[in-house]
């Protein structure tokens, strides 16, 4: 019996109020027949995961619009100075960008298999292994990002008073790097938050919280992780590959 219900009974004792029956050694929180993870405002487990998934998608729609503002900004300034953006883009390291794209795609695979492991009631060890693999790949992504950022700092490519550009379009190049740091920075922040979420999910999996009947937290966190992957799928060509690399 929940705490709220017990209090209500105390203040408004009904005519059929009965004290809970205690049998020594058999204390059970929920005695009525449903899955312990089913919250009381849902009718069925299916309805519960449906509602959670839908709620996560609504959040992801707000995230699409959050990143959408930056993509709009990128579109406006790139249309204004296509040559400047192409020139600035050539300073980014395509190899690192491609490596990070692959790393994130592999992490999406391990995430999807982690969700599947929970769905199929795989042992906690298997579930945790997929989540740890996902986290390791996420950390690798951030490591590569750190190498790239260091390179930009040492080459004076960070917008501000020390920004230096030898090419023909210094103003457009500075705008490009402003957008580069905003977009990849916001994306990296999402990766850091994702790592935190995966930490919690990993601990829950280790404590045998997930099985075929209840895996909502893994499923919903997986949606977030895949979304962050999708953002990078667009960032990679838009930032690293514009203006044609055939000239080199």
């Amino acid at each position, binding site marked *: 019996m929940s705490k709220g219900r017990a209090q209500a009974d105390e203040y408004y004792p009904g005519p059929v109020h009965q004290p809970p029956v205690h049998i020594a050694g058999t204390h059970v929180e929920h005695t009525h027949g449903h899955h312990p993870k089913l919250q009381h405002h849902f009718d*069925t487990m*299916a309805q519960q*995961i*449906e509602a959670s*998934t*839908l709620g996560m*998608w*609504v959040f*992801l*729609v707000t995230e*699409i*619009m959050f990143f*959408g*503002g930056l*993509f*709009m900004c990128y*579109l*406006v300034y790139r*249309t*204004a100075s296509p040559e400047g953006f192409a020139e600035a883009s050539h300073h980014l390291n*395509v190899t690192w960008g*491609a490596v990070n*794209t*692959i790393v994130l*795609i*592999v992490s*999406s*695979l391990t*995430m*999807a*298999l982690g969700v*599947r492991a929970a*769905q*199929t009631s795989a042992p906690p060890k298997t579930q945790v292994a997929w989540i740890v693999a996902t986290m390791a790949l996420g950390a690798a992504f951030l490591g590569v990002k750190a190498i790239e950022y260091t390179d930009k700092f040492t080459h004076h490519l960070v917008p501000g008073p020390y920004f230096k550009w030898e090419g023909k379009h210094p103003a457009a190049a500075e705008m490009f790097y402003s957008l580069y740091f905003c977009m990849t920075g916001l994306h990296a922040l999402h990766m850091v938050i994702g790592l935190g979420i995966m930490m919690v999910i990993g601990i829950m999996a280790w404590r045998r919280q997930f099985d*075929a009947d209840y895996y909502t937290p893994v*499923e919903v966190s*997986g*949606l977030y992780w*895949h*979304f962050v*992957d*999708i953002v990078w*799928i*667009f960032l*990679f*060509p838009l930032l690293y*590959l*514009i203006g*044609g*690399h*055939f000239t080199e």
Partner: protein
Amino acid sequence: MSAGHVAPKSMYYMVFGALIVGTILTVAAAKVDMGPLNNIVMLAIACTKATLVILFFMHVRWSSRLTWVVAMSGFFWLLILFGIGMTDYMSRGWVPGTLR
């Protein structure tokens, strides 16, 4: 209830393979001079990859119609943002005396 659909592992590996091929194609396409087509090819591959992730990794393929509508609404609003936003920026100065 379709939310509990368990897809075979082989499907995940196939989608993964397609995503890797897409990435290699994107990098390869950037090295070929196709003029304005370069951007279109690049974005077409990115959109295909995103669709694969949404449909299979994010299980939208097996989700309810309501989830479909909500997921698509995000991209629909994004198109409105880009469409109306660029209509403004690209048409500036077309009419004499307007802000450029």
